[in-house]
């Protein structure tokens, strides 16, 4: 095994890129779940974002437009989930699974003509001063804008939930929709907005896969990233900071095992490929084993304003 072929600066840099799609999707889903809705359609929304973002970027030549189109498409798709579960009171679990299937099918239909094409990708930011620091500059400060946007989003979601009145109302709705309704808050409207936000985040995550990380369109390219995002939300005890840890951990182990494979580690490839899933879940279980879990009390329960 030739470990010297692994360059630490490149390794860290690629960890950040590998973690970003999952971070975005998990962050969006966390907000949705904080509002008391369980949307299992993250995988479907991510892949829809991936294909719409790719197609838009290829046809317009602008990756920025691609990201915007991806966010919009996934958010609109998630609104269909919102309409079914919040207005028509369908079962959230079944509808979410359906959303994943719809997303996978729809994306392969849309994506057929784009297979094998190459898309324009986001430029690396050239941050003055910071980017010139030796090693660190290349490791942390020479990425594309989405990496930093996702990190800022973590901060924004954390501050929104902790310090703003709107965030408090969102948490209250997820905690007890009956009480929130009794106080006169519009439970369904608030939840629909949260679902919309979650959809947009998942779309951005998917587009990051197809426009930056790979960057290509292949059918089923999310390969379970949406499910990992869902798991990360639970094991992160619905906290933005821990979602960040979980996503970077998963991204880190993914990149590390790929590097190990390339370096010819004498461990079966199957075990290496499995390791990101195993290690992420294990670490987050250990973190969440201590202390309160904090699942929103109304999570997944249907709300009907009859009484």
């Amino acid at each position: 095994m030739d470990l010297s072929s692994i360059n630490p600066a490149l390794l860290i840099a690629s960890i950040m890129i590998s973690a970003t799609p999952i971070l975005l999707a998990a962050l969006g889903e966390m907000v949705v779940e904080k509002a008391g809705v369980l949307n299992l359609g993250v995988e479907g929304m991510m892949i829809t974002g991936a294909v719409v973002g790719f197609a838009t970027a290829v046809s317009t030549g602008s990756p920025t437009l691609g990201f915007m189109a991806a966010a919009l498409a996934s958010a609109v798709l998630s609104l269909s989930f919102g309409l079914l579960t919040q207005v028509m009171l369908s079962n959230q679990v079944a509808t979410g699974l359906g959303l994943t299937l719809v997303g996978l099918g729809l994306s392969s239909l849309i994506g057929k003509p784009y297979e094998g094409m190459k898309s324009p990708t986001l430029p690396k930011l050239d941050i003055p001063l910071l980017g010139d620091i030796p090693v660190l500059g290349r490791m942390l400060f020479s990425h594309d804008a989405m990496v930093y946007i996702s990190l800022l989003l973590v901060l924004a979601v954390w501050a929104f939930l902790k310090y703003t009145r709107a965030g408090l109302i969102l948490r209250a709705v997820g905690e007890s929709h009956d009480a929130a309704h009794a106080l006169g808050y519009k439970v369904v409207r608030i939840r629909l907005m949260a679902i919309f936000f979650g959809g947009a985040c998942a779309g951005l995550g998917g587009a990051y896969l197809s426009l930056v990380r790979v960057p290509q369109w292949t059918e089923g390219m999310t390969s379970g990233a949406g499910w990992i995002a869902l798991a990360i939300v639970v094991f992160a005890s619905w906290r933005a900071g821990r979602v960040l840890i979980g996503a970077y951990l998963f991204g880190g182990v993914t990149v590390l095992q790929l590097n190990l494979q390339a370096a010819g580690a004498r461990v079966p490839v199957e075990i290496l490929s499995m390791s990101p899933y195993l290690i992420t879940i294990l670490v987050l279980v250990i973190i969440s084993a201590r202390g309160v879990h904090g699942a929103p009390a109304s999570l997944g329960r249907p709300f009907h304003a009859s009484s």
Partner: protein
Amino acid sequence: MADTLLSLRGLTKAYPGVVANDDVSFDIRAGEIHALLGENGAGKSTLVKMIYGLVKPDRGEMSLLGAPYAPSEPKAARALGVSMVFQHFSLFNALSVAENVALGMEKPPRVGDLARQIREVSEMYGLPLDPFRIVGTLSAGERQRVEIIRCLLQDRRLLIMDEPTSVLTPQEVEILFATLRKLSAEGTAILYISHKLEEIRALCDHATILRLGKKVATCTPAESTARQLGELMVGTSFAAPASRAQATGAVLLEVTALSLPAPDAFGTPLREIAFQVKAGEVLGLGGVAGNGQDELLAALSGERLAPAGSVTLKGRDVSRTGPMARRDAGLLSAPEERLGHAAAPAMSLVENGVLTAARREGLVSGGFVSWAKARSFAERVIREFDVRTPSPDTAAGALSGGNLQKFVIGREILQRPDVLVVNQPTWGVDAAAAAAIRQALLDLAAKGAAIIVISQDLDELMEISDRFGALNEGRLSRIRPVSGLDMEQIGLMMGGAHGMEVAQVA
């Protein structure tokens, strides 16, 4: 003559199949404490929901200080100074006191200012409260303070209180009454909903009585007897349970040093619980909700296994056996939550009968349910306990609370238990049905069963039990004979006023 604050004229609200309020009119004057009295299902809740803007009336109008008043949502009502203290579904367990208060306000101040205001107001009205505690860790009485303070911090003209004392110890009731009198003296009118007659006589200036959605009277409670009020409320008189000769036999159930950790973050641990019940005896266990009642029932019924040696049934240790084995041995139970715990809402009464009576009544043979036997068992429960239902095939969830409660209790009683544990047997049940359930429990005891009644209704416990104990934070007080107990002693057994000692030190 004081000013009229809120005037209701001809309020009518119908739901499919039932008229909840039919042409209700009365006035509430500024600064008075006005009682709204009625049985469960008399339409009290619908009426106050209309005042609070949660429900729109079909017909009729309201006016506040002479101006037309038709709140489209609670926000509008609060803006005009009308606020409400709910009994259920109004607090968020995982949030802090300050956050809960902020959610009930239109324009909450910054967290630091709000916390200071909460401290000030809570001390001014004798309701000490720490703004940063998580609500899930508070006692029922403290939770109510959160709601009251939420109302006090806003412009208030009318405060609606929905059955505020059902979760309080007698000492806490006194504190609450003092607060309400103080508010009333400051000019805030209070609409006080209750079915506890003595309370209303002690507190309220006027009372409006509802029966089956119609107003039957407005009177001055201090000038009426509880019996007169009760008859106005119920419409007919009903039999009080017959007294019986006390003849107790051998000890059937013995609990010693029963300790169990809390089942979840907001549950109560059981600490060193010990008592005995003899054949023919009714043991009443009181206490404010959330002091270990559900946990004790789970430990007795076998839903949660207890430490070896802590639960002995007829001389046999059953602590490590599950509910089925305990049922086989004669220990039956009926939990508090009718829908979802005592009965499966979407299943028919016949099926719900099979769920607990399958083995004792032989409704199953060779793994197959005998539906004929199951049906006749359900029909027997329905007949003997006067369960009003279209048929035994009706879903349990479609029955009214009182009728389902009669079915749930009847189902256990007809299985001839040696020991029966019931939690809140008459909660949300109308007076006539409650009397019938109490009588059935007494009859069962007279036949030689030992009965444990866990309840928050002290009057009920005084009426049917031979001995009384109170649960407080998972501990059981000393068990004392009911005869000779007064409210003061009972209140102390229940733990006095929760949190008051802490406040005086601080």
